[in-house]
């Protein structure tokens, strides 16, 4: 793959353009020799603009001659400024200087008497020409400086764009091997040379290795450099002796992110030496860039993300189906048993059947909770807000949790003129259910759980109060954290500590908040969901007669 870069004019973001071109040049194996090729490039780069600027001056002269000498002499110099400016903006200072001198000479020769001679009789004419030369040189210099600045700006912008693209590609990498591949591609393209990127062994062991085309010998050498105190860079010859490799490690103070290996190729002659120096300079920059982009962090994140994703996918897809299907069969079968007359009449059997149903439902709601928790931790809670009656939400939650609440006395009260709320009903209902669950779990059987839904200046307050264990100040501070469970209850009440965490995430996704109040130990707890009232468009109301 990286060999495909050969002969391609490549982009090198962190070096000035002239170096970029030169560093790409050695990639051309078909050139007779690097030196000759360089010379040719030099002639083309330096000579062509010079010749062309002189030709421009020639063209200006020809034009002026055609128009004739009727042209006022002091206007002639202005025409000669045109080639100077063009040369300055296109090619820089030297061609502009050449154009200025040639222009002054041509003006003197053709347009200042005596004609067809460089001699000047008139002092005024001499001053004219000197003035022209001065103006031409200064404006030529200014123009070429402007050109350089524009180029630098454009270059910097390219560099930023490229780096941005690269870091975006890094961010999109889900596996370490993706990352390595991205870095290899990036470096190969930047250097115009075959480049391999090695990462420390423990990470590679679990990932499939990325083909990098580097010989085993080089790989071993690179592995030996994976130490923070190793030499930062080395040049070694591969075992075939055909090409030279430049190795450089990417390290921060304490960690080694990896080693970059570049095939510099060729015999050790002057050209290769020069190329090595250049590549080394670029690699130094590259390794700094990679550090700046926090390759280490990106790699760690990628492998976490992969594991997380696999687990989540497994659970979301198959696992939850695999777990829920048998539960559906268990609950369904128990529900059929419940309807059979002989079982209904049997005092011993019926409670057993309801136990089966109840436990199946409990397991199912536990799986549901895990799914909710995964949604929350994956930041995948996207509420679909729409106008809803808070009564419906609370009643649905009470209905859905009727089995969990069966041992308690549940009362519910609603304000007379409850406003509507703008929420995702399913999420709020689930949050409400979680709070009901908690109330049932942490208060003694037979005690009262009261649900009150009230309107309060722009808000709807759903409060669930129990007469249970209450909450200490210390516990309160930790409430709402994932997996937090009070010390006192850990061994007594089953649960995973996810309930309030899920509830608060779901409620805040609906622009609401949860408040937990307790008078203290044994004084019960009140959990309130506070939701903003929906804004009803009164003007175009339901219009019912």
């Amino acid at each position, binding site marked *: 793959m990286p060999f495909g870069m050969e002969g391609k004019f490549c982009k090198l973001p962190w070096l000035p353009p002239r170096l970029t071109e030169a560093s790409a040049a050695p990639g051309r194996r078909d050139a007779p020799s690097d030196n000759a090729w360089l010379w040719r490039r030099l002639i083309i780069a330096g000579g062509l603009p010079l010749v062309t600027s002189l030709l421009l001056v020639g063209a200006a002269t020809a034009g002026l001659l055609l128009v004739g000498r009727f042209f006022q002499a002091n206007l002639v110099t202005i025409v000669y400024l045109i080639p100077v400016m063009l040369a300055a903006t296109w090619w820089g200072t030297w061609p502009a200087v050449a154009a200025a001198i040639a222009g002054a000479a041509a003006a003197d020769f053709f347009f200042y008497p005596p004609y067809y001679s460089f001699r000047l009789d008139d002092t005024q004419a001499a001053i004219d020409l000197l003035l022209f030369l001065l103006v031409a040189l200064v404006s030529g210099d200014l123009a070429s400086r402007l050109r350089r600045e524009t180029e630098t700006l454009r270059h910097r912008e390219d560099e930023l764009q490229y780096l941005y693209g690269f870091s975006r590609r890094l961010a999109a990498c889900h596996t370490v091997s993706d990352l390595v591949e991205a870095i290899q591609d990036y470096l190969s393209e930047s250097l115009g040379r075959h480049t391999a990127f090695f990462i420390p062994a423990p990470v590679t062991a679990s990932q499939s290795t990325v083909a990098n085309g580097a010989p085993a010998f080089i790989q071993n050498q690179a592995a030996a450099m994976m130490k923070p105190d190793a030499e930062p860079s080395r040049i070694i010859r591969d075992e075939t002796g055909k090409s030279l490799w430049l190795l450089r490690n990417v390290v921060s103070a304490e960690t080694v992110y990896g080693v970059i290996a570049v095939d510099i190729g060729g015999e050790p002659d002057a050209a290769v030496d020069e190329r090595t120096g250049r590549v080394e300079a670029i690699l130094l920059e590259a390794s700094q860039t990679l550090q700046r982009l926090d390759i280490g962090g990106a790699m760690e994140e990628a492998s976490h993300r992969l594991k997380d994703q696999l687990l989540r996918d497994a659970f979301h897809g198959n696992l939850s189906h695999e777990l829920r299907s048998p539960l559906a069969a268990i609950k*369904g*079968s128990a529900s059929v048993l419940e*309807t059979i007359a002989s079982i209904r009449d049997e005092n011993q059997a019926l409670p057993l059947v309801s136990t089966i149903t109840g436990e199946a439902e409990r397991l199912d709601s536990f799986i549901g909770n895990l799914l909710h928790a995964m949604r929350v931790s994956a930041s995948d809670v996207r509420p679909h807000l729409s106008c809803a009656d808070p009564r419906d939400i609370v009643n649905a939650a009470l209905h859905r949790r009727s089995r969990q609440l069966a041992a308690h006395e549940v009362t*519910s009260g609603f304000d007379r003129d409850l406003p509507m709320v703008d929420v995702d009903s*399913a999420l709020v209902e689930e949050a409400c259910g979680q709070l009901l669950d908690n109330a049932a779990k942490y208060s003694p059987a037979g005690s009262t759980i009261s649900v009150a839904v009230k309107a309060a200046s722009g808000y709807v307050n759903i409060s669930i109060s129990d007469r249970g264990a209450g909450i200490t100040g210390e516990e309160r501070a930790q409430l709402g954290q994932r997996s937090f469970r009070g010390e006192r209850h850990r061994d007594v009440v089953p649960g995973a500590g996810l309930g309030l965490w899920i509830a608060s995430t779901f409620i805040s996704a609906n622009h609401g908040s949860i408040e937990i109040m307790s008078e203290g130990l044994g004084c019960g707890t009140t959990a309130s969901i506070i939701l903003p009232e929906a804004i009803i468009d009164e003007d175009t109301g339901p219009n019912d*007669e």
Partner: protein
Amino acid sequence: MSKPTNLVLLIDDEPKIRRFIRAGFELHGGFTVQEAEDAAEGLQAATFNAPDLIILDLALPDRRGNEVLDLVRSWSNVPIIILSVEANEEEKVRLLEAGADDYVVKPFGIAELIARSHAALRRYFKTANENPVVVAGPLSIDLVNRTVLLNNNQIKLTRKQYRLLHVLATHLGLVVTHDQLLDDIWSTSVRKNIQYLRILVRDLRQIIEPDPNRPRLLVTESGVGYRLQSKIEDITLS
């Protein structure tokens, strides 16, 4: 049901689920159950055996359940009830709009599925022998004379309240989506405004529900729509 036995086609790949559904349906309500374990078998049975009701699981090994729904709906009006594991609200609405008569989310009790099946069958056969009076608990709605009795006393409803009750009554026991209700009650210009529907429902509940704060006749299907229960007992099913 008035018919001697109804043939139910049950398409689900889980044998244990098929087993309890068959047991439940054959023990109660006089159904004959035919089972199919995948979409291909199900479609074939739906074509050749002319079932009175199809119970369709969404997760089939060979084809997605909603494709089966579309295919059956392309030639038949037979009532279809969807079984699914945790279908989200949008999915439920999509299925209902695609022509499903109702859905039941796993895990479910057999009584719930049988109640839905009865409701779907009632609606299906109603079109053939139109009975103008629908009874829902203490309510009786005369669809021809447009009168509503609550505990045998005539009640007065606004036009839109009546329209809402009418649509729900013609789908007695079945869920009706918000869009369906909005389409039916309001002109197209405002039909996407669910606020109006919420307020209309709240007002209607004030009139027909024994306890408007805990509705048991006109019940909400969260995120999907509303359902008019045929009997008050229905909602205590587990």
